[in-house]
């Protein structure tokens, strides 16, 4: 067999084998594409979960359980079964979520229960309307929120373990416990502290440990802060409306209130 003949022979075999590989790939394409559809949907939910934690938990709660007196839950049966009928929305739930997140909400639809974070009740999130998020990011948020359906309607029961955040008992430092409360109780939704939260409805608290001492004559910083949490109307900061929860102090224990005050005092 000459070299030319050998090469023709081997080349023909290789072409046949390559053809079989392509055929094999072709037969599996349908299945593979389906797998990628699921995979990409999964990725969307994962990305949405990250975004929710950064942007939404301040008002809607860590697990979308809502914060009474601030923002509604997104993980309950009402949201999945009755919400769009309640507001008279024409489209589907996904459209509703994307539209609401994109444009925000000027006025709350349930002002008694969830008055929101002032005016607007919910800020706009889409960069089309001056918000910080791109369209694709809002779509991932919607995918994540929709994924609560199975647990909201009771189809799936989650295994509950103690929260991933260090629990208040574990933390020896009252300031650290206060930070936890600050994040979990909705304070972060309205107030800003550099490096911790970005709320813009209430006064900025970045240096409140210092300023609280000089606010009202005769009040120490600690007394002023405690008073302001228990009775927000006592000394309203100029330029801000009366929006803070009146009954917040009732929802936390005295020890927790101490922690929160200690945390705020440390902001200086």
């Amino acid at each position, binding site marked *: 067999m000459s070299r*030319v003949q050998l*090469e023709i022979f081997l080349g023909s075999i290789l*072409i046949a084998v390559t053809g079989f*590989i392509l055929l*094999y790939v072709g037969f599996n394409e349908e299945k593979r594409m389906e797998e990628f559809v699921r995979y990409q949907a*999964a990725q969307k939910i994962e990305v949405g979960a990250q975004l929710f934690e950064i942007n939404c938990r301040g008002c809607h709660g860590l697990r979308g359980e809502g914060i009474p007196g601030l923002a509604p839950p997104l993980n309950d049966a009402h949201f999945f079964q009755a919400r769009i009928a309640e507001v008279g929305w024409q489209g589907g739930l996904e459209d509703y979520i994307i539209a609401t997140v994109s444009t925000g909400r000027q006025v709350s639809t349930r002002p008694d229960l969830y008055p929101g974070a002032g005016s607007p009740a919910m800020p706009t999130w889409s960069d089309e309307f001056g918000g910080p998020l791109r369209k694709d990011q809002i779509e991932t948020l919607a995918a994540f929120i929709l994924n609560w359906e199975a647990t909201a309607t009771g189809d799936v029961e989650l295994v509950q*373990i103690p929260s991933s955040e260090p629990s208040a008992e574990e933390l020896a430092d009252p300031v650290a416990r206060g930070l936890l409360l600050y994040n979990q109780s909705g304070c972060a939704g309205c107030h800003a502290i550099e490096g911790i939260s970005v709320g813009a409805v209430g006064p900025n608290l970045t240096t409140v440990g210092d300023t609280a001492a000089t606010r009202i004559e005769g009040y120490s910083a600690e007394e002023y802060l405690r008073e302001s949490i228990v009775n927000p109307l006592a000394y309203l900061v100029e330029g801000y409306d009366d929006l803070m929860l009146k009954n917040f102090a009732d929802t936390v224990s005295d020890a927790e209130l101490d922690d929160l005050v200690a945390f705020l005092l440390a902001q200086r």
Partner: protein
Amino acid sequence: MLKSLNFSELFKNAKTAIDNRVRIITAGLSIIELRALLRGDPPTEKPNPRYKVHVTSFMFHIRPKFYQQASTIFTHTWRLGFFTVFFLALEIVTGLILMIFYTPTPAEAYNSILSLTSNIPFGKLMRDLHRLGAEGMVIFSVLHMLRTFLTGSYKKERSFTWLTGVVLLLVTLGLSFTGYLLPWDQLAYWAVTIGTSMAEAAPLFGNEINLLLRGAPDIGAGGLLRFYLLHIVLLPGIVVWMLSIHYYKVAREHSISLPAKYDREDLPKEITKKAKQRLDLLPDLLTHEVFLTTVGLFITILLTAFFYEAPLENIANPQQTPLDTKAPWYFWWLQGMLKMGDKTLMGIILPTIIFGILFAVPYIDRNPHREAHKRPLAIAIGLLATLTLVVLSYMGLPEYGIETPAAARIIQDLAPEEGLGELRAIPYDQLQPGVYEVNVTDAENMCPDLLWGCPILESVFVEYSDRVNEAAEEGKLPDAEAVLVIEEWQADLTKVTPRIIWSDGESGDRKSYEQHIFLHRDHDRDH
């Protein structure tokens, strides 16, 4: 009437007619000649019809009539130049197909790639082939250059061929780099942001060059379109132009160099004669090329079908810089150089000098000898340069020379912001909810509820524990406490929180670092 039909005459006429058509299509080869060609028989007509095609056919007039036998020895050329062109052809074919499904806008580019993998039959294969082919083209063109250098084949009349070759290498790198941005994912966006920011450091016109490339101060819609057009029009145009010159010089003017040992004058005549024996294009060279093509196709398709996957990270986010931004591997050497000095010197001036020297190699090296032992200095410099390139590339890795705080490094290695990482490779079912504390939780039998346990979760946890303890011993994380918290977050969605708490060396404060990683059940692929 039947009598008037002369069948033999009819057959003869038909045969002549068919033969004539075949000769027109094959530029002069008859059917019988074609058969002889494929069987490896000698030419059937005189004068040799196999040389006629070089005059009558455009495609064949740019091909060599013959190469000398010794110049085609496999261990002389290693077929590196051939495979570089093979990859170029692969890039053109797959690239044209990919163009059908690609939209060069920031809003659509990433979606194009997603739908390519999830919605278009063979779409993923095409993309993987295109990506693999790009890397192959870079590897083979560099190796081809190295081979040409080591065999001294760039000397004398082949100087200009070398020069066009260096241009082709530059354009190949340019093609890879511009193509890198097109998927519009985090990896691409930040690698290209860093790459183009080097242009900014160029003296005098830096800012203008940067603006011209990016179309705006930051890479956006304008930059993407510019890179796309560079990738599909300008750079391929230059490749075709330069390759025409490069190849024509080899094929029609100087041929492939003979191995240097045949240059010696004292060789016996028979050996020289045998070395210079002609191998005609038809059938020897062409069959060999077709054969190599089938080998190339087989290997690339085998790799892409079963082993190789073009990476795709999250969609580009100008607001978020990943912790480790990494250039494509063929630019690691540049990244390594950048770590040693300032941008203008290391990023612009030195690379310009390096490529300047590469261009000028045949004009600097005036030594007429080609045999390795007669040009020790050149060989030494060549090998030293190759070694330097490898070392510089190593220095370009994010692991080298960049100090990341220990806790961030450990958690980033466990679950990189971009890419897979060990944590994401754990099968979903093994992510059993719980709080796993380093040095407290027993790393054996972490999931008593699972029939087969969770060996992969356990091995990842052991690795995590070891890294934390190691850093604690080195004094980077004094009094470290570390946990791995796994929670069910939604149906089919799990949240994993690695958290490290340690005492700060100076103030003694307790510091903490953590990442939240969400994993969906359908994230598992090919496990």
